[in-house]
């Protein structure tokens, strides 16, 4: 084998190695004159994120603009910073981002704002200094309190409950868990017999979430309810409960995708669970981005704007010191409606 042939093969292999990156991360070549609005999701290949981007694209196109949808391979802040820098070079009008980290994106996003780009976060917030406004699916407080009330209902008011979260760093989940704990602490008489025994972290990985669920079941044989406020976690918990024939003894609830949870809602492992409509989150973000850019709103509490088919929204103070726009109450998925939603997302 000659060295030239060898090096040609080498080059081919390297091209192969990086081809998918170009394919999936590469921006399309857009006409330079159209106003472009960018949306950055946490990572590629997440159906929930796909739906959010779909909604964003719909909202942007409806207003006659062009959308750029980007997501890194891995859910890290570093990867998102690279994308932000590329978008700044492309001179987009606005950047909407689902943050992989609350604080780490601040330098990059502040630079973008200094350049005159409108910056807002959607779904998973970045800190108030790095954004003009945050578009939230539903009030974090409402989610946290609703999930504890659901657990109370499923446990018939008494027993051990546990939480199965994503990573211990996930800002969304941590905020919801904080509100769950507050709901428990603020109503001591109502929840006197309900005991939160552990918060486990499945890291949004199937195998780890299954191991953590099994660990919960082994450590707490009297466990009544598992609350999993994360897509992979709740499906993994539903799977374990189904496999082990514990339907009816241990209940699963939380936040999950209807498609992933359809089987477990139908078989009773999960009596009901919640989620908002990710398409609407993306759609609302699109209108918030253009309203900010046009100066219709500044991101201050009390500003109001109209978001196409969703109607009017108001900017309200957020729990983290900044401001946010709330989509609405979380939607309840239960045996009676899961059938019509499982094919949607």
């Amino acid at each position, binding site marked *: 084998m000659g060295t030239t042939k060898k090096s040609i093969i080498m080059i081919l292999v390297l091209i192969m190695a*990086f081809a998918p990156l170009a394919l999936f991360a590469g921006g399309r070549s857009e006409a330079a004159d159209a106003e472009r609005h960018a949306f950055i999701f946490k990572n590629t*290949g997440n159906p929930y994120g796909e739906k959010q981007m779909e909604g964003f694209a719909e909202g942007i196109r409806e207003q006659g603009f062009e959308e750029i949808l980007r997501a890194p391979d891995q859910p890290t802040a570093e990867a998102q910073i690279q994308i932000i820098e590329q978008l700044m070079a492309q001179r987009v009008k606005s950047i909407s981002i689902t943050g992989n980290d609350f604080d780490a994106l601040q330098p990059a996003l502040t630079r973008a704002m200094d350049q005159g780009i409108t910056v807002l976060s959607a779904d998973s917030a970045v800190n108030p200094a790095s954004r003009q406004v945050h578009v939230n699916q539903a009030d974090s407080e409402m989610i946290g309190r609703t999930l504890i009330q659901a657990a109370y209902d499923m446990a018939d008011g008494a027993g051990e409950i546990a939480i199965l979260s994503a990573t211990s760093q996930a800002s969304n989940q941590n905020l919801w868990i904080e509100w769950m704990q507050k709901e428990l602490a603020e109503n001591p008489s109502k929840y006197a017999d309900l005991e939160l025994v552990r918060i486990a972290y499945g890291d949004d990985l199937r195998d*780890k979430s299954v*191991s953590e669920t099994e660990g919960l079941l082994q*450590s707490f044989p009297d466990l009544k309810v598992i609350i999993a406020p994360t897509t992979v976690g709740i499906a993994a918990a539903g*799977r374990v409960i189904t496999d082990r024939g514990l339907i009816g003894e241990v209940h699963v609830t939380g936040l999950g995708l209807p498609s992933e949870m*359809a*089987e477990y809602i139908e078989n009773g492992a999960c009596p009901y669970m919640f989620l908002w409509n990710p398409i609407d989150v993306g759609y609302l973000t699109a209108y918030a981005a253009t309203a900010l850019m046009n100066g219709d709103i500044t991101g201050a509490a009390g500003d109001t704007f109209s978001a196409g088919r969703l109607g009017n929204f108001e900017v309200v103070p957020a729990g983290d010191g900044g401001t946010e726009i709330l989509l609405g109450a979380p939607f309840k998925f239960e045996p009676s409606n899961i059938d019509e939603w*499982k094919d949607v997302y």
Partner: protein
Amino acid sequence: MAKRNIVLTENLRELGLLIFMVVIAVAIQLRNPAFLRLSNLNSLLTNTAILGILAVGMMLVLVTRGIDLSIGSTIAFSGMVTALTVAGNPGLPPIAAIALGTLVGMAVGMVIGVLVARFDVLPIIATLGMMNVVRGLTYVVSGGRWVSSYQMSNSFKGIATGRTLGINNLIVIAIAVYLVAAWFINHTRTGRQIYAVGSNPEAAGISGIPRRRLIFLVYSIMGGLAGLAGVLWVAKFASAQGDTAVAYELQVIAACILGGVSITGGVGRLTGLLLGTIMFGILANALPLINVSPFWQMAIQGVVVLAAVLTNVMVRRNSERNALRRRAI
């Protein structure tokens, strides 16, 4: 004499690992008495079966001085192709689904085999390239969507949840893989030749062993096992997603190293591999049970691997020194 020495060293090393495992198991049991309960041991083995199957293939690759970084992607790809097929044809018999996934994985392995064996591409580069190619293909065939539980037939999910003779199917399949591998490695000419290629490629070449053909073979076997693991993974978790098993190859390689497989080739035994895999299974199963902070879990895993490798080095050095001493007399 030398051969007996090596066997002795390996026995000693594996005994060391076994003692280490017992110590850890006792420590865990003291913190949470649920650990050694039968139901927990059953889920421990069930959760470790896929890792064990992959470790067999990886050992063969490592023995030839190679490495395969693409198997996480192959698992996702074969799992996704199988899940999509099952979703489209609910009547597909489970055995056909297993065959399909294994063939898809084997095809990926054969491409790597050609790159490494025919074109002399370094295994780390060839498999790094294929890792991205195959992961990309997974997103292409799925369109970024997941295949969920309700789209899969019960018979398909039964591959992972069903029982044969009272034992979970995953464990049964893993045992079958180990038995076949034991026969292949110890009792076939090809199996022995794989080790010859790994311990001394030049000598193997001179003595007429078809080195390239064997290297092609080990990557094909690895691919086939990764494909099989993909089907089992999807059936077990009842969901196929594009980012399934990202970086899982690192865990498999770590399990091999823990089991005494040498990354420089030529050395690796199934008994050690079994211990290494189960050690990993114990860690994954027990860390949630002993309620350590999630921040510590990764660090603990790393420390255990390092400690095992260190013991490995020390036992080996010790017995080499003893051998030298005997020769001097």
